């Protein structure tokens, strides 16, 4: 008897037209078609989606959380990228 798991897939669901696909969770399936059908049964039993993406988990590459502070450091000291950085008089309207 084989005790090997089917490959793991990550599931992304678009909840309605106009919105992004969002990560919903993961599941096991033998191939992509089965992964999509299983995702429908596991993650959209109450009409939570109108479109499903699946990708085998092994193809996902992630940034390293341990390097978080240095990795995002370049954006840290650039408050001038935000609109609130600029001193403007209160009487200025529609901006």
């Amino acid at each position, binding site marked *: *008897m*084989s*005790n*090997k*798991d*089917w490959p*793991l897939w990550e599931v992304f669901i678009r909840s309605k037209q106009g919105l992004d696909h969002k990560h919903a*969770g*993961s*599941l*096991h399936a*033998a*191939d992509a078609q*089965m992964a999509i059908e299983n995702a429908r*049964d*596991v993650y959209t*039993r*109450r009409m939570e989606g109108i479109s499903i993406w699946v990708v085998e988990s092994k193809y996902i590459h*992630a940034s*390293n*959380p*341990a390097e978080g502070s240095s990795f995002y450091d370049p954006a840290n000291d650039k408050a001038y990228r935000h609109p609130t950085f600029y001193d403007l008089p209160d009487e200025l309207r529609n901006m």
Partner: protein
Amino acid sequence: MAEQQEKIFQDKVDHEIRIEPKDWMPDQYRKTLIRQMSQHAHSEIVGMLPEGNWITRAPSLRRKATLIAKVQDEAGHGLYLYSAAETLGISRAEMIDQLHSGKTKYSSIFNYPTLTWADIGAIGWLVDGAAIMNQVPLCRASYGPYARAMIRICKEESFHQRQGFEILLTLSKGSEEQKRMCQDAIDRWWWPAVMMFGPNDESSPHTKQSVAWKIKRFTNDELRQKFIDVCAEQVHILGMKIPDPDLKWNEQTKHYDFGAINWDEFWNVVNGNGPCNKERLAARIKAHEEGAWVREAAIAYAEKKKRKEKVIA
């Protein structure tokens, strides 16, 4: 180094920053989560068995459709939790093996039999009610994937409890025999449901650490009291009785006092000697073994398809 990492970890937890799969975490935190989440997943899966017993005998098409949907939800909940647990580095196959070998447990409540249709109502009201009491605080658990799975589960669980109460309410307005059936189901499920919150706080050695790690937000006894307070009121709507002569409103504590819990029975069922322990595990193992050829065939088919695609390309 490890000490410093542990401090960073605890700081995050204290500040309600969720821990994610690739973040550093203490080994014991990982182990505790794997144990708790896999037990929780197993409970959802084994929990399909007592209810599945009544699908073919549901009294109407409406009840049958509802029960099928509920049992299918339980399967879904098991799958959310298994995949959340897998992010901690344990494989699905290992977890299933541990269930089958008895190394990890599932909730003892599912080792009780469903003798009449009223039991389906009592399970919805009491068993799912107790589960919800436990699960709502878990939506804020410190481990991100667990918390997210619990949010999904809690959203779906609410209908489970309501459909159960509706079944009991219908029976409570029925014939004398139906009323008796309703009371009998409550009598049999009440104490096992009260025990679902686990041992008393003083005999629950892991609680303190789990609260510090914000895996648990309330102790077993706090949740149990909350559950009893709610049910003691709800039972009036059914015109039924809770089988506890000591159940009484306490003006001072603003809670219901309740009678002594039979912990011998609790441990007896946990240790494998409940009415249905052997039957439940045997049913799971049989389904797994008899489904092996399906899992193998699906893999063989996927591989064959891949080879054909390569030839065409």
